[in-house]
Structures are given as structure tokens and as C-alpha cells.
């Protein structure tokens, strides 16, 4: 790997990490170029082999597809898994299943970095407090920018150094590994995506019978070799039937209330359309930039209000008070939840115009909204929408086609950017009524139910594609050799991958197994399976 390639990978890897602001905050970064699937395409492009990059990215992605990271509690970090695991595996010419095996320890290394950053960043929070108190407001609102340094250090340097200096050794290292251990690693990597899909299922499936949707999707691909688009269509059809059937009982809740815009007059507004857009972009880019355990996203709210404080107040004292009342703990899902900073902005403008709104009301509203929107946002976005889109993308790219990652990028950003703009504006214009109206409309539950069915079906389809097992047992009777693989294929193609995925689901959903422990169980299955020659 040339030094330029390593630098470029490190730079993009850093920009794609969870707390990096540069690519539309998390939207185009962490949730787009940060997904191993998209990262695989980018790394493939840099290293001159897009197809291999995408296939490796897809394999690593399959493992981490069900990973949701609520409120900064992170079980595994995909950043190093993707931006170190994939390049090294490509340079060494490893099969993609070994890239998956390599990504596991790297993901735990990444988690250590996350905890380091959120702990150290508390220093920046107290610094921001002091700056506000001293009236150095410009500096105070730039704290999220300065605070990015910790994230840069723990991402850019490890990715660069390990890729650049590790590349020559990794191929030698893989030559030193005895063949049987190699087989174990390949087997481990091939069955491991079952954990990813099991985790995702445990989240999507609310009642056990919904596993039927998963089975339908699995059978479509395993038995009839259907490609992912028809699987998706069948999922949508099933969801339609379900919703149609249930609509009668829902009709009461489905009455959509229009948010009231009463009492909001355009005249005398302090913020222009441009100011509101500036606040929106400030929030979207910087929301996680100095993520810290103590106050979470509060410094970003301070920054957002700081970008428009000159329009709201004239005196330094008033501006200080504005920023100071937003320093306490704030945390929500930043994208769907961007309606909350919108509401805050609207309330602060009303207050600045002289409306009788006490500090306490603003803080109470903020506190009341942030939790619920985090709950809704985490379950709809990283818990549902992103894994479903990724699943479709993975299905489109099973031979390393570039269509899959491009599909994901275009559809995800093409929907999320307008949606977040709309939500932020709704919050700003209609305040808390907007949030209540959207939530009370029942639309959210409708989306969530439909997504469970479409998601279950699609996940079934890609499980059949991405979980693999080569069986070794053969039975001899006279001249005839019957392999276990053939017998099982006669019953149900890919039966072992199906059972492994259901096992992962069972461990996670029913036995409450953690991800680390489930990984370990699959590691043991791979090692023992290879030792008794069940897997080859």
C-alpha cells in the first residue's frame, strides 16, 4: 500500500467515524460512508479493485447489519472493522470470510476509542461553560469544532499507521497460519453473518409468528434463487395485506391531525429563512462532534443557538443567558430527532420576541421531547430503515456489483436530507404541536409495522445469500458416496445457514445472549465443526 493510499483511507475513515461532523454529520458519514458496505466500495476504488472491495465490504456489513448504537452505548464499532479490516484483507489477498473474522477484534478496539473520546470530551464541556461565563461567546460556540481534535487523533492515526505499516506483515502472517486454522477462520467468517441477521431479527420481530416472513424470504432465495428485488416486492405485498387487514381497527387512530399554525404570524419574526437554514445545518453537521458522557449533545445545541444569537438578542448578557440555559444534558437521535432542536429554536425566537416563556418551560420541553424522539429515532432509523436499505443493497451486490452501494447512497441520502429539513422546519414553525400531531397520527406505528414485514422478508433473503457453510461429512455404502450436503440440499437448500441464523436469533432474543457471547458461541461452533470435519 502506498503512503498516499494509506493517508486517503485514513482521512475518509476518520470522516466516516461516528463523531465526525464533516459529511453532513452522521447522515453521509457514519450512516453512509461509515457503513462497511459503502466503505468497501471506497477502499476498493482507492486500492484499484472495486469489485473485491465491495464483496469484502458486503461480508463485513452482513455481520454488523443489526447493530444499533443507542445513546452512545456501543457494543461493537464498525469503523476500524471497515477501514482497517477491509484494506488489510485486500492487500493480503484474503478471502472475504477472513476479512469478517479480522473485523471482530478490530471492532472491539474501535469501541475502546469511542469510550476514550466520550470520556476525554467532558473537558471540552466544562471549557464551554467557562467561556460562556466569561462572555467569550464566539469561542464558546466553536467548542464543537475544537473538540473534534480528540476524534481525529483516535481515528486518523490508528487507521493510517496500521494500514501503512501492517500491510507488509499481514500477508506473511496469513502464510504462517496452519491450514486447519485457516479453515476455522474461513468457517467462522462464513457463519458469523448469522449473528448479524439474528440480532436484526431480534429487533424487528415482535412476535414469534413474524419469523414466517423471514422464512418466506429465505426460501425465495435459497430454493427459487430469486434476486432481491422480487423478494422486496413480495415483502411489500405482504405488508400491504397486513395493513389492509388491520386498517379497520386502526381507523380511529389514523385520523391525521394537521399541526396548528395558529398564533404564529410571519410579521415581526427575528429569524429569516436563511437563519433557520443556518441553524439546521449547524445542528445536522455538529450534533455529535464533542459527544461526551456528561452532557451528550448539549454543546451542539449551544452552537446551533450561537449561530443565530445575534439575530435574537443585542446585549452580551442576554446572549450569555441564552447559551447558558442550553448547557445542561441533551441527547436525542440527531436525525429524526432534529425536530427537537427545531422546536427549541422556535421557542427561543418567541421568547426573544417578548413572549412570556420562562427558562423552565424551554428546558422542560427540551427534556420532555429528547427521550421519546431518541426512542422513536433509534428504532426507526438505525433499527429499521438503514438495515432494510442495506439488506436490499447487499442483495443487489452479491457478485460485487457497484449497484448495491450506489443504491444505498442515493436512496438513503435522497430521503433523509429532505426529511430532516422538513422535520426541523416543522418543529421550528409549529413547535410542540408539530411533534404531537406527527406522533398522534399513527403514521409512525404504520411505518414500523410495515417495516417489520418488509424487513423480515428481505432479511430472510439476504441471510440465504450471506450465511454460508460447506459441509464435509460423507457416508459410503458400497460404491456409492452420499454427502450430507446433498441429503440436506434435497430437504431444504441452505438448511444449515438457516438453522444457524435461527440459532443466533434464539440466543439473542430468547436466551438474552450479548453480542460478544454470541460471537464466542459461533467461534466454538466453527472450531469444533472443523475439528470433527462437519465443516470443511
Amino acid at each position: 500500500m502506498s503512503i498516499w493510499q494509506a493517508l486517503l483511507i485514513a482521512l475518509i475513515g476518520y470522516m466516516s467515524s461516528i463523531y465526525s461532523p464533516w459529511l453532513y454529520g452522521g447522515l453521509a458519514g457514519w450512516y453512509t460512508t461509515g457503513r462497511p458496505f459503502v466503505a468497501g466500495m471506497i477502499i476498493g476504488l482507492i486500492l484499484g479493485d472495486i469489485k473485491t472491495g465491495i464483496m469484502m465490504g458486503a461480508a463485513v456489513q452482513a455481520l454488523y447489519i443489526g447493530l444499533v448504537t443507542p445513546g452512545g452505548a456501543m457494543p461493537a464499532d464498525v469503523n476500524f472493522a471497515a477501514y482497517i479490516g477491509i484494506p488489510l484483507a485486500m492487500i493480503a489477498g484474503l478471502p472475504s470470510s477472513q476479512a469478517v473474522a479480522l473485523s471482530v477484534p478490530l471492532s472491539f478496539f474501535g469501541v475502546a476509542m469511542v469510550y476514550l473520546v466520550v470520556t476525554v470530551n467532558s473537558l471540552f464541556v466544562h471549557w464551554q461553560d467557562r467561556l460562556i461565563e466569561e462572555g467569550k461567546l464566539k469561542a464558546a460556540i466553536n467548542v464543537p469544532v475544537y473538540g473534534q481534535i480528540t476524534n481525529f487523533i483516535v481515528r486518523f492515526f490508528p487507521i493510517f499507521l496500521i494500514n501503512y505499516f501492517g500491510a507488509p506483515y499481514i500477508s506473511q502472517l496469513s502464510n504462517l497460519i496452519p491450514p486447519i486454522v485457516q479453515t476455522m477462520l474461513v468457517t467462522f467468517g462464513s457463519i458469523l453473518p448469522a449473528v448479524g441477521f439474528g440480532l436484526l431479527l431480534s429487533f424487528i420481530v415482535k412476535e414469534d409468528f413474524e419469523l414466517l416472513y423471514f422464512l418466506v424470504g429465505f426460501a425465495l432465495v435459497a430454493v427459487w434463487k430469486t434476486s432481491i428485488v422480487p423478494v422486496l416486492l413480495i415483502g411489500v405485498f405482504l405488508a400491504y395485506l397486513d395493513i389492509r387487514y388491520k386498517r379497520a381497527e386502526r381507523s380511529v387512530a389514523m385520523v391525521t391531525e394537521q399541526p396548528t399554525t395558529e398564533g404564529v404570524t410571519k410579521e415581526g419574526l427575528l429569524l429569516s429563512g436563511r437563519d433557520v437554514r443556518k441553524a439546521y445545518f449547524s445542528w445536522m453537521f455538529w450534533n455529535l462532534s464533542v459527544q461526551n458522557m456528561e452532557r451528550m449533545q448539549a454543546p451542539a445545541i449551544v452552537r446551533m443557538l450561537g449561530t443565530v444569537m445575534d439575530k435574537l438578542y443585542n446585549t452580551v448578557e442576554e446572549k450569555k443567558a441564552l447559551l447558558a440555559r442550553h448547557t445542561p444534558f441533551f441527547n436525542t437521535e440527531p436525525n429524526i430527532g432534529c425536530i427537537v432542536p427545531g422546536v427549541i429554536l422556535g421557542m427561543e425566537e418567541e421568547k426573544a420576541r417578548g413572549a412570556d416563556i420562562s427558562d423552565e418551560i424551554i428546558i422542560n420541553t427540551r427534556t420532555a421531547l429528547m427521550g421519546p424522539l431518541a426512542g422513536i429515532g433509534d428504532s426507526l432509523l438505525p433499527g429499521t430503515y438503514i438495515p432494510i436499505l442495506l439488506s436490499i443493497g447487499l442483495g443487489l451486490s452479491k457478485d460485487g456489483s457497484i449497484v448495491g452501494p450506489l443504491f444505498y447512497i442515493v436512496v438513503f441520502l435522497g430521503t433523509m436530507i429532505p426529511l430532516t429539513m422538513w422535520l426541523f422546519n416543522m418543529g421550528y414553525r409549529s413547535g410542540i404541536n408539530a411533534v404531537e400531531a406527527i406522533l398522534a397520527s399513527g403514521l409512525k406505528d404504520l411505518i414500523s409495522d410495515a417495516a417489520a414485514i418488509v424487513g423480515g422478508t428481505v432479511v430472510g433473503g439476504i441471510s440465504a445469500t450471506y450465511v454460508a457453510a460447506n459441509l464435509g461429512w460423507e457416508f459410503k455404502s458400497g460404491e456409492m458416496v452420499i454427502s450430507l450436503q446433498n441429503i440436506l440440499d434435497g430437504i431444504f437448500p441452505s438448511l444449515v445457514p438457516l438453522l444457524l441464523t435461527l440459532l443466533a436469533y434464539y440466543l439473542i432474543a430468547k436466551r438474552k445472549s450479548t453480542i460478544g457471547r454470541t460471537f464466542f458461541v459461533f467461534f466454538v461452533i466453527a472450531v469444533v465443526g472443523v475439528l470433527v470435519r462437519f465443516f470443511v
Partner: protein
Amino acid sequence: MKLYLHIDNRLIHGQVTVTWCSFYGANMIAVVNDKVAVDPIQKTMLPQAARGLPTKVLGVKEAIDYLKTLENQPGAALVIAKTPQDALGLLDGGLKFESVNVGNQAPVPGTKPVMVFPWIAATPEDAQAYQKIAAYGYRITPKRTPADRDIDLVEELKKKKLLA
């Protein structure tokens, strides 16, 4: 109903909807705090955040009466107390729980808490409440999600000199 007690001043949020509800196999959620129960915004918002699980927002007294009526029913309920004092109130009211866990306790503005863990702030009063909860025979864990390490919170409070 099996009752699981979760002390969390962010109430219903991502960690709750994404991990705890399915971990406990909860059929319903009860949020317990006297102030929250009379706040119209939170009363409408919280049930909307629960991913379809039936949700009650109750004051401590109401919660004790209501949760007692569930005793002989099948299933599980996730009981979210906003503060350790709320949790203690429930125990003093005679409720029994399968387990007691603390999720997030962000510092409350105007108090001078000690950060026991980066996500758990505690004042000396909070520490007393935790100790009384533990005295009912519970081992209090400080987990944000079920995968977090299994630690005894009271031991940590002693290490931080909040408890003797």
C-alpha cells in the same frame, strides 16, 4: 406480572426501546415520577415513544396501587423510575421486583453530583436512596444496555466515598 425496575432520568429513549424492552420481554411500560405524571407534554409524548407497547405515566402513589393490581397477571412490565427516590418510594409501598438497574442519571442542573460512572451522577441523597433500595435485598446494577458489565452500584458508591 413480573416487574423489572429501571432507574433512568431520560425515561423512555433509545436504549430502552432498542434493548431493555425486548431483553425483559416487556408487555408494558410504567413511567413513575410525580412531576412527569402531571406534565401534559410528557404524558402525551412518552406513550408515543414506546414502540407500540402500552405505556402508563404515573405518580409514585398511583403506580403502587396500579402495579399491585397486576400481581397475578401473566407477562412482564418494565417500570421506569425517574430518580432513585421514586424507586425507593415504590419499594416502600410494598412492590417487589425481579431486578433493579440504573440506566442514565444525567446531572440535574443546580446540584453538585459526583459522576459515579460517566453516565450516572449521584448526590449524597441519591446514594442514601440507593443504599436503602439495596437494603430491600436487591443488587443494583449500573447498565445502560443489557450488554454492559455486571457491577454492584453500591460498591462503586462506597469507592467514591458517597457511602460509608
